[in-house]
């Protein structure tokens, strides 16, 4: 009984203890906002008022259990046109943080980065580079990395010169109800495990949704990913990523692209208007020096997707001739031909084209031919289930 009493007392006390600090737009916004983020107590809320906050330096939060809440993604705008220092607009390095209802515009580097920030919620956030797609835009819109349990819900990103929504080297990830357009990559899940990407709209990017695994990184061996019930439409933006970055190699007109990884399922998506391919499955094709890295994809299942027009202007060398030779259009699903065909399954009822490339061989050596990928129907990974508190915070 006494134990119940303690619990009841705690529950009764917690709303009173939860402190809210409000920061309004106006002079010295930089210092007032940053001071509020530093002085925040665990469990407190920082409300950012409506209006434009013109900032000179990236903001950062390093206190656990803090909610940062604006008046809405079109009302509370953190503007970084005049940014003089630090790589990103907002950096979060603490756990159990909720970011919601505000916008970050025109940061010089990434929009919002969270590193080692477990159980973070990004809800109803907008990150935008307002000058449209440009090589000089920042790399990532929202950028959780090296974290466990991530929710990205109702986020909009426009103009990222790398990926709009990028999740790297993380575990237990949900990306849903979000809209990405005018980025090089719309959504990218990289070197991560256990991700559900669903009910998103990716349109007008170079590539819509990417699932990548890369060598020479602390966390590798990506997989256990489900990409389902998304709309991936008209991703034909010419690639504007700075050369040297992996996404600079993504051809315009790419819908869903799986590179390396194990056990990735692409299910029940609406895919159309992607000029190179609706779905591409490929090995990591660049040179690398990392014996622990597995460059070829395994256990990939593409099933139940609805395919609209695709493959009518393939964005790789020789693509035009290939399309012409095949009657003006290549099949909507492409496989580079590297790795084990018996580990791949495409059962969408559409043709698949193999490029016939050996692992690591240049595209000029391609021997394109139709292929059937009838690998086993391995069961899809279990749904990623988030803690109830995270779901509640995203209501």
């Amino acid at each position: 009984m006494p134990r119940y009493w303690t619990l009841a007392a705690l529950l009764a006390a917690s709303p009173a203890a939860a402190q809210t600090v409000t920061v309004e737009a106006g002079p010295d916004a930089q210092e007032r906002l940053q001071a509020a983020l530093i002085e925040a107590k665990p469990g407190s809320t920082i409300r950012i008022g409506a209006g434009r906050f013109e900032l000179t330096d990236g903001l950062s939060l390093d206190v656990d259990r803090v909610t940062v809440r604006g008046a809405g993604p079109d009302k509370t705008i953190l503007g970084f046109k005049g940014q003089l220092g630090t790589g990103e607009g907002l950096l979060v390095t603490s756990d159990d943080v909720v970011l919601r209802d505000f916008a970050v515009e025109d940061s010089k580097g990434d929009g919002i980065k969270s590193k080692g920030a477990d159980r973070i919620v990004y809800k109803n956030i907008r990150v935008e580079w307002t000058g449209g797609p440009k090589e000089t835009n920042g790399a990532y819109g929202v950028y959780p990395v090296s974290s466990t349990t991530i929710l990205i819900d109702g986020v909009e990103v426009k103009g990222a010169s790398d990926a709009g929504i990028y999740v790297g080297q993380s575990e237990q990830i949900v990306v849903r109800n979000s809209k990405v357009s005018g980025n090089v990559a719309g959504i990218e899940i990289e070197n991560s495990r256990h991700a559900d990407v669903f009910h998103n709209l990716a349109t007008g990017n170079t590539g819509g949704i990417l699932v990548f695994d890369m060598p020479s990184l602390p966390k590798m061996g990506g997989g256990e990913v489900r990409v389902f019930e998304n709309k991936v439409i008209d991703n034909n933006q010419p690639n504007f990523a700075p050369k040297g970055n992996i996404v600079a190699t993504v051809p315009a007109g790419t819908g869903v692209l799986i590179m390396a990884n194990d056990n990735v399922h692409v299910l029940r998506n609406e895919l159309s208007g992607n000029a190179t391919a609706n779905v591409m499955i490929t090995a990591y094709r660049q040179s690398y020096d990392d014996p622990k890295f597995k460059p070829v994809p395994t256990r990939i299942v593409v099933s139940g997707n609805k395919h609209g027009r695709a493959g009518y202007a393939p964005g790789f060398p020789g693509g035009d001739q290939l399309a012409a030779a095949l009657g003006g259009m290549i099949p909507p699903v492409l496989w580079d031909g590297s790795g084990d065909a018996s580990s791949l399954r495409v059962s969408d009822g559409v043709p698949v084209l193999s490029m016939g490339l050996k692992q690591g061989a240049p595209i000029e050596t391609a021997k394109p031919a139709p292929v059937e990928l009838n690998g086993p129907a391995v069961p899809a990974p279990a749904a990623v289930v988030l803690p109830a508190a995270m779901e509640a915070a995203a209501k």
Partner: protein
Amino acid sequence: MKALAAAVLLFCAALAGRPAAVNDAAITGDTLPGKLSDYGFFTDLVGETPAARVIGYDLETPLFSDYAAKHRYLYVPAGKTARYDAEAAFDLPVGSALIKTFGYRQAGKFRPLETRLLLRRAGGWVALPYVWNAEGTDAVLKRAGTRIPVTFTDPAGEARTISYAVPNQNQCKDCHALSGAIAPIGIKTRYLNHNGQLEKLIVADMLDRLPRDAPRIARWDDPAAKLDDRARAYLEINCAHCHNPAGAASNSGLFLESGRRDPVALGIGKRPVAAGRGSGGRDFAIQPGDPDASVLIYRMESTDPGIAMPELGRATVHQEGVALLRAWIESMPKPAPAR
């Protein structure tokens, strides 16, 4: 009356024949003292006269901070000593403090801008930034940091005007963090082991021991030292506080501690990961023999916050440091051309 009382106090202190003691409670207490003078690290703050057990030191190769001069001091409370370590930072006892004042020489006089404190409390290290007043008489706590317009003359004799950034408390931790906990960076044997500095700490009874074979890092601008040693010292002190497996840039896989041997981790033939426009269109962090094709040089030569490395505390290009790393990359054998 107040002035008279202060004068009497000073006189008494002088009579006692020893400098006033540091305010240990300010270091270890659970408060955030508002002024630098609250700590009593200096018997004369303006004249920079250290109190007892406050000893100045410098680093053989320092972090570049916009050509600012840095005055560093270590305080270890009476009856305690720092624990020697050949590799890691000294293990400093609770109650210790690291004091670092940044400023520029102007009209022949050092003008302090800010003083950063690392305080060793029972719960770990606390980092606090203090900004000096215009009169240069004291510094006040600015947890949110600030910017100060500064004009100075660089070593090449060129006048420069910059917006000098005093880091906020979180930014202190961006650099001073290992696995999420604040940690000192420079106070390591190899960076202090010159000009009898460590011997001085032994004599002051502030360091527990000093082996004969204590390591020593190269001075980055010592023409007599090996190019490789100079470059690796420069990379470690300027980059490795983030670029290590427990640091802020752990996800990059680019690790630049001076003991690191794996060429890919050092950036040789390593492709950028999350560099964005920081890649500058280059394929590798380091392209042996070709500094212009190396991302590392591109980012050091930029002051654009979306490109520049380090991300914090640099609004100017360190021309001399860039020249060193250019020479180092130049000296690496070029890879055989692809067949």
